[in-house]
């Protein structure tokens, strides 16, 4: 796996322009007071950047040669999951850190509002997205899977963002009071279990798909 991770890291380091833009937004959004958005945004970017490594793999028929190299197909799958789930979590954590720093720098306490919730939502959301996207990418290849999965991801993103910000307050109150009947910890545990289950199913599917794939 070391070789595969190294390959992906070396490929990703070429995106300097993209990273500069991300840094720009990562600074701008908190400055504009959009704290939780920063977290969801960076988390999503982390996931997208990680999964783009599959595009690099596929580019110019590269997969044929890649899969003749010395690694097991199951290792390839494991590496992609670590990269994508890790990328999403890392992005979200980075976003959280940026918010925290920005709140100290600008003295805007509103930025800290909903930070923890956003972080949790982001982590769970993007882990779930990875679980959905990776089997699709592995089965159909990066190009064909890309459209389907980006649509899925956009839907998830909108859902997440919408849940956090656009529910009318009354709806939120109802939601919240309803939730208050279940302790937060309980909800969290159930969500985490759901995501873990999703990842488990997803990995099994991906392993099955990769073993059948021809290059």
């Amino acid at each position, binding site marked *: 796996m070391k070789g*595969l991770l190294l390959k992906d890291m070396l490929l990703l380091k070429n995106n300097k322009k993209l990273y500069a833009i991300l840094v720009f937004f990562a600074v701008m959004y908190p400055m504009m007071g959009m704290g939780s958005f920063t977290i969801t945004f960076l988390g999503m970017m982390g996931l997208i950047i990680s999964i783009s490594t599959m595009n*690099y793999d596929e580019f110019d028929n590269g997969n044929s*040669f890649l899969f003749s190299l010395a690694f097991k197909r199951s290792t390839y799958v494991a590496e992609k999951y670590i990269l994508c789930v890790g990328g999403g979590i890392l992005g979200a954590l980075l976003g959280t850190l940026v918010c925290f720093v920005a709140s100290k720098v600008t003295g805007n306490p509103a930025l800290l509002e909903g930070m923890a919730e956003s972080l949790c939502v982001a982590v769970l959301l993007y882990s779930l997205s990875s679980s959905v996207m990776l089997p699709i990418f592995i089965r159909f290849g990066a190009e064909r899977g890309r459209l389907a999965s980006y649509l899925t991801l956009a839907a998830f993103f909108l859902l997440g963002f919408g849940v956090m910000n656009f529910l009318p307050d009354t709806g939120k109150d109802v939601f919240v009071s309803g939730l208050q009947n279940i302790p937060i910890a309980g909800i969290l545990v159930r969500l985490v279990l759901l995501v873990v289950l999703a990842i488990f199913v997803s990995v099994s599917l991906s392993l099955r798909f990769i073993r059948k794939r021809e290059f």
Partner: protein
Amino acid sequence: MLKINGLKKSYGDFHLDVSMEVPAGMVVGLVGSNGAGKSTTIKSVLQLIRPDAGSILFCGNECGAGGSLLTKSEKEMMGVVLSDSGFSAYLTPSDVKSICAAMYSKFDKNKFTALCRDLEIPERKQIRTFSTGMKAKLKVAAALCHDARFLIMDEPTSGLDVIVRDHVLDLLRAYMEEKEDRSILISSHISSDLESICDTLYMIKKGRIVFHEDTDILLSRYGILKCSEDQYNEIDRQYICRRIKESFGYTCLTTEKHFYMENYPKLVIENSGIDDLILLMEKGENVS
């Protein structure tokens, strides 16, 4: 090292059905026109595609239809060069060095650096800036640096000029000289390359092996006869296996050129090479 038996794969109208062997210590050449089945065979050995039927024994392990997946250590024993696929174009040779070192336990970084220098491959430029020839050189270099026991190469010298080809072939010969039990399976369109390194040749046509002979015998015993229609009808044709109709009569492939040299001194007889073989096998007809 490698034994292929009854390997079958079908794509629509195309049906592959081959049996061949690469013994340890030998260089085996594979020739055939595009689409004949060379790449399909090679990809089946590498398990990039799954055969419909047949056995592929690699170092005694069954890897064909119904066999097991190649283990990591088995893959480390292979050095691979494919014609239409390579390392990602956004990597540099220096990146390739690091990646291979992490993937192959016996990868020799110093040897790779020296080889890149020798082949004039710039270490820090991205592969997408390379010419076809340079890309080919890098592929070969990467395959030679992890002490692979078995090199499997699909057109490793295509896109290279004569001088560089000579250099690359010499690297391959040196590679064989270093250890007794190494083997190479090499497919190529450049016949002179194969003639200068291969011990045995297989020719694939429409998914089947149509010719299998030691290079030495092809070059020393086989021959090309050129004769008029009359001459053709007069001579003893028991050692002629293929012929092509020409304007002057026939060009024939014989398995015993010395027979004809001694008995028909007036006949035009030439040494045969892989190119002649391919032309006669592809375009000629059988002589029973």
